[in-house]
């Protein structure tokens, strides 16, 4: 199908964008990569009176990695971030998760921040923002605010952004040196939305017999309403790496209790829960077993 009529705006700079949002906010939609919004418009699931296309606004396409965070502008495409070497060194989870976001063609247009604002619980990048204790910088004609991930995601496809606000930056936190990270998911076809997926960050202290596990945190894709973080430190923290296999049941229980999947034609809720459990157990043992060369962050 085709989108219903709307008034198309192509602001030339940030001030114009914010003025348009101030004027039309409740009746307007921001268009970034369009890889989620345009299908919705084509299917007429949304029918905004105004479309504010930010693709010609300069200054929104920068990636900056500094000591404590990676700043990703509103027009940074998934593909650009995936190939950004400073960003992936600073926060390896970005690359590890972005490889699972859609197909390369979609990643060429879709933006990482758009995917966060869209707040689809099946999206990989909201889970990464949550796990890295990241935040979103929002601007309106009236000013600016930063919202932490824990407050930004309020429900499936619901975020804390106001009608007159533009998300200008996603800010992904970094982990302390020595933290190992990983991402895995299961989809019916690589590139499709995950049936279930997990992002994991775990620290390991050196010591005899492979050392001991320090902190461990996980966030999930497609099995929680919002990407909230499961702290596995009480379950595995302090355990000797060599003893980790003995904690598999406890990890399973923590994950199974935390996730709250819904069933659909692709997979039942039970199957999704099972996948989340197995993915977490495997990723955890892979990461703590990683050699120094594989250690990241």
């Amino acid at each position, binding site marked *: 199908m085709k989108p219903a009529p709307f008034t*198309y705006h192509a602001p030339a700079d940030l001030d114009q964008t914010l003025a348009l949002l101030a004027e039309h906010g409740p009746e307007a939609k921001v268009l970034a990569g369009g890889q989620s919004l*345009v299908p919705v418009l084509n299917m007429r699931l949304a029918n905004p009176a105004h479309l504010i296309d930010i693709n010609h606004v300069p200054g929104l396409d920068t990636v900056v990695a500094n000591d404590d965070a990676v700043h990703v502008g509103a027009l940074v495409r998934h593909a650009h971030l995936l190939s950004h070497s400073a960003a992936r060194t600073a926060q390896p989870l970005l690359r590890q998760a972005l490889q699972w976001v859609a197909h390369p063609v979609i990643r060429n247009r879709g933006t990482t921040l758009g995917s966060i604002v869209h707040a689809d619980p099946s999206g990989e990048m909201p889970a990464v923002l949550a796990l890295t204790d990241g935040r979103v910088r929002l601007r309106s004609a009236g000013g600016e605010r930063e919202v932490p991930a824990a407050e930004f995601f309020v429900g499936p496809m619901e975020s804390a952004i106001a009608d007159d606000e533009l998300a200008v930056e996603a800010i992904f936190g970094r982990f302390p040196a020595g933290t190992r990270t990983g991402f895995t998911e299961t989809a019916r076809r690589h590139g499709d939305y995950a049936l279930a997926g997990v992002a994991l960050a775990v620290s390991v202290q050196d010591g005899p017999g492979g050392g001991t596990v320090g902190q461990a945190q996980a966030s999930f894709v497609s099995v929680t309403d919002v990407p909230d973080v499961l702290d596995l430190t009480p379950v595995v923290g302090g355990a000797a790496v060599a003893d980790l296999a003995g904690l598999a049941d406890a990890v399973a229980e923590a994950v199974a209790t935390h996730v709250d999947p819904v069933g659909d034609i692709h997979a039942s809720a039970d199957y999704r829960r099972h996948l989340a459990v197995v993915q977490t157990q495997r990723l955890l043992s892979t990461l703590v077993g990683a050699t120094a060369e594989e250690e990241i962050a």
Partner: protein
Amino acid sequence: MSSTPDAQQPEPKSVRGTIVTTVPRASFDPAGGAAQPEELLDVYLRVNGAEQHIRVPGRRLLSDALRHDLGLTGTHVGCEHGVCGACTVLLDGQPARACLMFAATAQGHQITTVEGLSTPDGELGPVQQAFVECHGLQCGFCTPGFLTTITAYLDENPDPTPEEAREAIGGNLCRCTGYQNIVKAVCRAAELRRGEQAPPDGTQTPAAPTERQEQR
């Protein structure tokens, strides 16, 4: 969700926050309302090297602008929600879904459609030639999207393994071929680009367009 008809604008907030993408904004008016002429925009596109000017509504999809406004019907439209890949064109050399872009957004970019993949004197490009040799298509509906996607991919990876070729076409759907011959065509196109002319074992000999019609 409430299904009670409501004369008011639907409320865009849930109890928890802003529903980001899927809320219909205007309530349906059964009386129809007064018909409004749609505002038209001047859009300048650079397609296959040529400058084009069209006057279209802001909601004109790039796929429709190419097909209906510019007559370049090589770009096919299957699903219109980004899944099938039939509409894939190159935007500054990178594959993009034409059904998920507005023509107005494409201003200032170089667009290459399947029509732009042949050489200036009308010879088939290497990927097109490989599809002929390997019988990489049946009905051909999906083919333009495969050709553009593969053309860009081979710029990035000029010598793919069959496994990599399979990965490269993973975002395009074909309802006819079972993909085996398309994977062969990716590898064959890589050879053609390197100047290796002999067709690989197990593929069809090059067939002239007229002979192809006999295959049934």
